[in-house]
């Protein structure tokens, strides 16, 4: 059953990435050099409306809050994000879109995935010597979310009801998506 879901959801995600134009590195590069914000608008809108529905459906008990998986916050998240950002901007691929771009018949995507496998291997071999360094110093306690909503994770702003806060953030994301210019 989980494998069936993996195939169904994976196919759906790959389909969505291709259809929104995320497998086209031209779109990513033009987003990063702030020329064409079509993808950025789609991402803001997607995050905003899915977040609102997620918190509403958790509040009414349709979605099990146990399914949430909040990643830890530490210095390496910012440093790693920056290293990724450099490669992302030059290649126009992130791990998911580089892989699915292969299905577009893009030859450069093969080289990206090959490089990705090497990069992941380098990290795997290096981890033993960098674990415990400042790179893994936790920020704001580690596994935190802004809104309350799950017993497993600490909320950064517990004074505001989680569903309300998520709703406000979601609306801000949707308005941002709507107001951002398509072409700059």
């Amino acid at each position: 059953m989980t494998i069936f879901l993996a195939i169904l959801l994976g196919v759906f995600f790959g389909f969505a990435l291709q259809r929104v134009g995320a497998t086209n590195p031209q779109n990513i590069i033009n987003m990063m050099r702030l020329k064409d914000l079509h993808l950025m608008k789609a991402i803001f809108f997607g995050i905003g409306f899915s977040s609102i529905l997620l918190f509403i459906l958790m509040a009414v008990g349709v979605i099990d809050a146990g399914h949430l998986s909040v990643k830890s916050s530490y210095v390496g998240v910012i440093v790693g994000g920056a290293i990724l950002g450099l490669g992302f901007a030059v290649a126009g691929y992130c791990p998911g879109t580089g892989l699915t771009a292969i299905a577009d018949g893009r030859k450069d995507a093969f080289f990206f995935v090959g490089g990705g496998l090497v990069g992941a291997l380098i990290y795997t071999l290096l981890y033993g010597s960098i674990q415990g360094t400042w790179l893994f110093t936790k920020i704001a306690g580690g596994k935190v979310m802004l809104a309350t909503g799950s017993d497993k994770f600490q909320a950064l702003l517990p004074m505001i009801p989680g569903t309300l806060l998520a709703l406000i953030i979601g609306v801000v994301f949707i308005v941002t998506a709507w107001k951002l210019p398509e072409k700059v």
Partner: protein
Amino acid sequence: MNGQLNWFKGGLLLGAVFLIAVAFVKPIGVSTQFVIADGIVWNLFSDTVVQKDPESKSGYSSSNAYLNKSGGKYAKNIANPINYSFIFVLAMVVGAFLSSRLGGPQPTTLDRNAPEIWRQRFGENPTLRYVTVFFAGVLVLFGARLAGGCTSGHMMSGMMQTSLSGYLFAIGAFAIGVPAAIFVYKRH
């Protein structure tokens, strides 16, 4: 481009995928599976990299510190490649192929070597593009593993859950990525 959804429909589709995934299973993530793929190959040539270990939380352990992390959960997935997260990522390629065949946007033959913006700036020779993209791929996956996730896991899934880490990741990625893209490709 022809066949590409506008931001509204595209955002609806993307948001729906991330929401449905967390509703039925767990938040979407991709970059961990590059480690799993490496591990599957490594495991073919090594008797020690992944071992059954009743002492470990997952039932598996590894001589490598990273694969042994979190009770050996990566080691377990390497020993059992038919698991949710790995099959999910393989299925993504099938999904993209279906979209491309069923009226999705189509790259031209030249686009398949390098995107137009690259060709305008660096010429038609694909070799330079392939070499550059290879090294960019090294950076992207190294960075993603250091960050503990990529655009899917941190940015989309993370920010959807209002996770602080998603915001930190996005700040890091765009703070370097935007100036880098402008430096390499220029604004005009």
